[in-house]
């Protein structure tokens, strides 16, 4: 009975969403103000209904209601409670429900927080977001209903995929979805601007917090996924250029480009067309990710539903929403949005360069992800594109980006000269070179050319940021007070750029200087990896709540002194008959030591993987800095205080 309430709530939500679309658009077309005002209450009602549906599904999992097909496929009575709850979003139907719920959440937030923008503009934004909701609700109700009942209720369920029975994976999907779905807000703003035929500096300012907020969620969600893969999969890898990883990375890259493009549109009134196009494209990539995961077009560890019938529906949704948006762009774009001139090595130039570079990076990732599909679609056969392509091309694009980032922070708005920039920057450049040379002597290695470029770029970015702060404090009496009083937007920018450099350095050093040994060991053996010794002391077997485990006991020593004891496990989950690895990790800021059990071999020995991974944690630390930088920038009171914002926007509008 309860499940039917959830189902009914979904149907009602669809009806409300339809109203949320039709009334504002018709009201805009014919000038009925009170029709346009229908958007806000519709958004809120939709949120309440979807929250109800989500609560109903969650209670079905908590109470082990196996008469629901979705619960029977993804849960089990022996599954611990936290995982019974996270199983709600562990597979296709439930995660879709989470998607539309989060969309309703963002829509409600826009309706509640956007009091400074003209009402008709906000109503149009809500209507566009409602259109997306309609599409997804139709998809759910027709092909992917989490409330479908089973005719024969099984005695117990098929258990949650053991890979997902992990704390990191409880919050990874919700965070990612907050990010993905948040791009719908930017999409809504862009289409509303296109429909009205104008994009003012004011509306550009108001879109920024939404883009930054969703970007922060994406940053953390992607980093969490990478971190989870590292400690859970047992190979010590942290990024595989898997199609679904790429599907989350592409909106992130374009979202970064969008943030920077908006900064220019807002301050100088330029880049309007590019901003609009980026907003549409970022959402498009988010939708594309949804398509790739759920259609069966690509195989991946992430692939949810390999069902072509569902794939057709999502593809149609994708085609209609994005095709419509791009058609609107082609129709309204020319003439309606002109920008201001800028020239030379101005800050606009650098921001444009980096925005374009990020778009190029996105395009190369998209090309690599879809190339196998295109190759097969035109009948040329099956090929695969993997890390060698992605690593090469991505590094090639990131190199000029890091350089432009470093210089661009110092360029003046509207007009600047390259020679002035370079001459004022010489000492910073030399310092970066110095650091790279020092790294060469302390790290060495055969491949230093590539590693050295990465280290140089990371050092250059950090030094340029430090230089920027120093410039602002130079000549002031109270340095600490000046630092404290720096605008939060600037602090956020600083933190985020430092985060980028930290991730870059971590990825470079770990890729080139990690040591990976894959050996046969039996209790009593010792293996040397790098400067460390690993003693395999013994094995122990025990039973967990829904698995049985073999646990190895390792002691890690350096120069004879014991550093830690590690306990990697090999688990075997009963219901789904699948093995899982839990690695033993000694983590640290400068390096990780990583032991995982592979397979049991003959005569009591096991295959064991031991890794020495220098600076690997910098990868996720940098991502954390980037997200914190975004949050800091968001907290800038100039964003929230309408009067201050109008003053700031007014001066920009004057110049623009």
């Amino acid at each position: 009975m309860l499940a039917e309430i959830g189902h009914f709530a979904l149907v009602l939500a669809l009806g409300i969403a339809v109203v949320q679309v039709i009334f504002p658009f018709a009201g805009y077309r014919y000038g009925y103000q009170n029709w346009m005002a229908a958007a806000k209450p519709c958004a809120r009602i939709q949120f309440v209904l979807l929250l109800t549906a989500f609560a109903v599904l969650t209670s079905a999992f908590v109470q082990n209601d196996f008469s629901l097909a979705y619960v029977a496929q993804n849960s089990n009575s022996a599954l611990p409670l936290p995982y019974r709850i996270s199983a709600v979003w562990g597979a296709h139907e439930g995660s879709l429900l989470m998607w539309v719920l989060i969309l309703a959440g963002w829509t409600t937030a826009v309706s509640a927080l956007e009091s400074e923008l003209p009402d008709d503009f906000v109503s149009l934004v809500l209507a566009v977001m409602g259109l997306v909701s309609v599409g997804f609700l139709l998809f759910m109700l027709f092909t992917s209903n989490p409330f479908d009942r089973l005719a024969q209720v099984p005695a117990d369920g098929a258990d949650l995929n053991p890979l997902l029975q992990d704390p990191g994976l409880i919050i990874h999907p919700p965070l990612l979805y907050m990010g993905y779905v948040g791009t719908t807000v930017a999409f809504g703003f862009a289409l509303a601007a296109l429909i009205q035929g104008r994009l003012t500096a004011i509306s550009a300012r108001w879109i920024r917090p939404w883009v930054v907020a969703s970007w922060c969620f994406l940053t953390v969600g992607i980093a969490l996924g990478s971190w989870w893969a590292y400690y859970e999969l047992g190979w010590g890898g942290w990024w595989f250029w898997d199609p679904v990883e790429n599907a989350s990375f592409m909106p992130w890259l374009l979202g970064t480009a969008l943030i920077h493009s908006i900064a220019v549109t807002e301050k100088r009134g330029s880049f309007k067309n590019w901003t609009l196009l980026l907003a549409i494209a970022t959402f498009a990539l988010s939708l594309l990710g949804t398509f790739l995961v759920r259609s069966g077009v690509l195989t991946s560890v992430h692939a949810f539903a390999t069902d072509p019938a569902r794939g057709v529906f999502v593809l149609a949704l994708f085609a209609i929403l994005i095709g419509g948006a791009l058609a609107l762009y082609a129709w309204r774009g020319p003439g309606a949005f002109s920008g201001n001139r800028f020239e030379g090595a101005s800050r606009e130039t650098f921001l444009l360069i980096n925005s374009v570079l990020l778009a190029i990076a996105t395009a190369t990732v998209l090309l690599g992800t879809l190339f196998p599909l295109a190759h097969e679609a035109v009948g040329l056969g099956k090929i695969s594109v993997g890390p060698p392509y992605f690593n090469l091309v991505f590094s090639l694009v990131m190199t000029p980006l890091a350089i432009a980032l470093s210089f661009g922070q110092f360029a003046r708005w509207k007009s600047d000269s390259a020679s002035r920039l370079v001459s004022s920057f010489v000492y910073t450049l030399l310092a970066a070179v110095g650091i790279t040379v020092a790294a060469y002597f302390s790290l060495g290695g055969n491949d230093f050319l590539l590693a050295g470029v990465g280290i140089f770029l990371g050092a250059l970015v950090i030094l340029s940021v430090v230089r920027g702060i120093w410039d602002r404090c130079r000549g002031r009496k109270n340095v600490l007070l000046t630092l404290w009083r720096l605008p939060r937007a600037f602090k956020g920018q600083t933190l985020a750029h430092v985060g980028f450099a930290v991730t870059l350095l971590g990825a470079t050093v770990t890729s080139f200087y990690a040591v990976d040994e894959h050996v046969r060991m039996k209790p009593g053996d010792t293996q040397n990896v790098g400067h460390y010794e690993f003693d395999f002391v013994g094995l122990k077997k025990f039973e967990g709540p829904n698995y049985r485990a073999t646990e190895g006991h390792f002691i890690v020593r350096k120069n004879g002194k014991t550093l830690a004891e590690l306990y990697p496990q090999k688990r075997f989950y009963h219901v789904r008959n699948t093995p899982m690895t839990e690695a033993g990790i000694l983590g640290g800021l400068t390096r990780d030591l990583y032991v995982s059990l592979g397979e049991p071999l003959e005569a009591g020995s096991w295959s064991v993987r031991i890794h020495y991974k220098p600076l690997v944690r910098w990868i996720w630390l940098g991502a954390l800095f980037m997200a914190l930088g975004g949050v800091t920038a968001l907290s800038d009171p100039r964003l929230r205080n309408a009067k201050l914002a109008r003053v700031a926007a007014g001066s920009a509008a004057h110049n623009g």
Partner: protein
Amino acid sequence: MNRYLIPAVIFIGLVAILGVGLNLDPRHVPSPLIGKPLPSFSLASLYEPDRSISETTFLGKPRLLNVWASWCSACVVEHPLLIALAQQKNVEIFGLNYKDEPRKAEAWLKKHNNPYKSIIVDPEGDLGLDLGVYGVPETFVIDKLGIIRYKQVGPLDNQAIEEIILPLLDELS
């Protein structure tokens, strides 16, 4: 006006590719050995331990090579189809007993009947490795010159037999 249409045009191309992609099966991996000769090998024959079989044994007549094992449950499912092929359609089938023990293989055949003209014993999986076998059962169509013409991954079914294997064998005779 023109350049504003570019994103839309690119998008249409993208949707077209994705649309075609929906009809393809990402799990279907074609064998790189199609069109290549059987790898050279020399292994014992089940029931006739003194006789050895090599790639030259396959010359002269198109045949099926069926990879199976006594521990493989899907092989039980496809076995009646092999029996029917051997008896009713006069298709000559060689078996490749993969990573198995001869005693268990013989017992299995006694229970399920034997459609094979000869059975290659490959306890270590060496020939399987050379053939790119990654699961059991698999079935190869070999022509009279010893060239691999088709590989069926997974158990045979009526559709594969009627639509692919029998026409191919006819064509090769």
